[in-house]
């Protein structure tokens, strides 16, 4: 393709603009911007007080799917069907909420919990730090404090 000097200069100018502007943006973003910690995954929970909805043999799992600061999550039995175990990871969990500086708050106005029948409001407030989670779960007006750790296999 034959180009006149004016077009060539414009072409070079545009490339330079793109490279320089991107370098500035990348430099600014790398130095100044921080995204939320990646907390997505499955956490095996240990409830401090017993719940009829879960047995000790089959502990509850907190499954968190993350889109930056936006979360969706599920609390399910660890022996639940694979689609149920995975649905929050692909963004289809029953609980929605946010994570701000590793503080998690997810809730649903009506959801079933473990083997308990009937749907009730559910709220989870917790802190996630280095693959460990600690917080409380409120269901049917009862507060269940819990701790948990991340399962290594996320699949």
């Amino acid at each position: 393709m034959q180009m006149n000097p004016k077009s060539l200069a414009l072409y070079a100018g545009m490339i330079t603009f793109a490279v320089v502007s991107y370098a500035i943006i990348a430099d600014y973003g790398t130095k100044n911007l921080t995204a939320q910690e990646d907390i997505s995954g499955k956490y095996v929970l240990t409830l401090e007080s017993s719940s009829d909805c879960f047995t000790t043999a089959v502990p509850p799992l907190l499954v968190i799917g993350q889109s930056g600061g936006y979360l969706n999550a599920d609390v399910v039995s660890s022996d639940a069907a694979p689609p149920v175990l995975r649905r929050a990871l692909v963004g289809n969990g029953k609980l929605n909420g946010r994570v701000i500086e590793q503080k998690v708050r997810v809730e649903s106005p009506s959801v079933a919990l473990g083997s308990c029948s009937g749907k009730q409001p559910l709220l989870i407030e917790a802190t996630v730090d280095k693959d460990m989670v600690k917080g409380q779960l409120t269901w049917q007006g009862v507060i269940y404090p819990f701790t948990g750790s991340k399962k290594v296999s996320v699949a």
Partner: protein
Amino acid sequence: MNLVVPSFFSIAAATGSGQLNIVLALLIQISIVIALSRVMGLLFKKINQPLVIGEIVAGIMLGPSLFGLLFPELSALLFPTETLPYLNILAQIGLIFFMFLVGLEFNSDNLKGKGDAAVIVSHVSIIAPFFLGSLLAIYLYPSLSTSAVPFVSFSLFMGAAMSVTAFPVLARILTERNLHKTYLGTIAITCAAVDDVTAWCLLAFVISVVRSGDMVSAIPTTLLAIVYIGFMLTVGRSVLNRLADYVEKSNNQKLSQLMVAVIYLGLLGSAMISEVIGIHTIFGAFLYGAVMPQRNIFVKDLAEKTEDFTLVFLLPIFFTYTGLRTQIGLLNEPSLWLDCVLVILMATMGKFGGSLFAAKLSGLSWRESSALAVLMNTRGLMELIILNIGLDLGVISPALFAMMVIMALVTTFVTSPVLEWIYPLRMFSEGQTAPTDTEAPQDPTPSYSIVVPLANPSSQDGLLTMALALALPQQQQTRIYPVHLVQLGDAYSFGSQPDQADKLVKEDQQRLQELVNSLKAPPGTLQPLSMISDDISHDLCRVAEAQQANLVLLGWHRPVLTHDFFGGKVRRIMETATTDVAVFIDRGLSLSANSKLAVLYSGTIHDRSALELALRLVSGQRAKLEILHTVELSRETRDLIALFREHLTIECTELTQDPIASLVEASRSIDLILLGTSAQWGLERYVFGQVTDELIVRCHSSLMIVKHHRQVTHLNALVVNAESSASLTLKS
């Protein structure tokens, strides 16, 4: 269905292994996917949208955003998680073959000699959205990404994802509107081709950066990619050229199955090498297609052999796989929807705004610049390909993925209507050069003109002969436009690409010219037109309007009419044409002075037009005319007949009892019967009206059915001649 499907699956599970279950589930899924994507594609075509939009929407409908939301259990049953990896594999194979097709249609000739405007617009249309995309990353990164994704990877990806233009969709829109040969169309195609190559190279670079972690670590991958591109452009192209030589020298000059296998092996090899290098399989597939020698046998044959299975079977699976991953429900907060709007705005500002100002600076008018910018803003499935890669790599989160999918849909969906609004088709046609203008007659405004659509080779001679017979009384001042509209196939096909469509039109023009040359007509009387059309009826009416035709003369090929509820294209043309329409049913007519014509006159305005056409025909042939009237002739009609009776044999006979049976009987001794459509033809389920349809079926002679449109007359010049000289000046 809730009851049937579980039992179906349980039977499968009980009778065979889990593998059988998965195979059955996959077959059911694919059947649903293909059926729904075709249905949605056709529905979207009805509202003048590219078929691909309907297919993408079908995919999203099958996912959690609609089907999964409304029927979660059935959705989980029909699309069990276990089958998703298999769907993914099919989708990935589909993408490899699709990108190969995209590469095949990339013709570097598009980039040659297109001037400064194309160069400037193409580069600005990449740089501006890339810049705005990476700028938007500053805002989105803290809220929609995680620390697992470095900002460099995120911003690079956002920039690349904003820069893409859907070349296939754009090319299709241009070709369908016959714009690909206009200055604007040429620039748009050039820009889209440049964007295509740049976007895929950019994406390859982004993937290497994402996989390596930072730009420095990506250097080896980038260098390897450059070496591979160089290898393919030199050694790869040379080997493929030799292969093309071999095919062309083979006995039947066609790609044998062995050759296709060799080429496909090369394609898979290229995809594998690019994956091993650390870019993506699709880049290798695109590159392999792009270096294919652009020879007719090689490229056309290969594209035709590849595209049907890829586009009908594999690509809808990719759309569904995308749909299954698209969770519009994730946008469950107003702030997320605001982010989504921002993504759409920035994408449009970058692509539309950048192209608009670049085109304006290059000397195009605001209107042309806007039209070009709208076309460049089309993202289509190319965006989906990039987004899926981003989601696979973990660069973008599911919520951002959903936003970007919505952005891709919106920008593609608005293209056709906004383009029509900014630059209506009629404006393009005004600016277009008609293919036969070089042979324009000396008299630019003929006193009488007929548009003759030619669709069926078996009837085209008869139609043109009839048109010439109608022209006979004023041969020198009459123009006949034989029109053949080339309809493209499916929404995306190699044959619908601008270059290929051009070839089709040229071949068609050549055939029409040969047909015209075979007829004995004064020079300049017959002026063939050939063009691409997506809506035959609409475009024919547009041609008739543009040529200020007095008559559209159609053929009729269906044997039975009486139970035709729609009447197809004929009915649509009759409804929308702004001139008279005559439908000629040829039963071996050969007009001469010995011919006997009849007009069935029942007093409607359509009968009056039929009478006028009959007078034209008998004036030219000096044939006999009988007017069979079921009502008393009006004074005006009687005067008209009297004027022509001085030199022609015209009889009037009143049909008193059972006019239909009388006419059917009379048709045994008549060569051609002309009659108008029924007065209420448009309100009935019959094509021309109940009586007319019945006559068509029962009469033995040839027929011409006429539908009148106001302000059209067929006798002006003849009557003036007759009155001024007190006798008709007949030219035979």
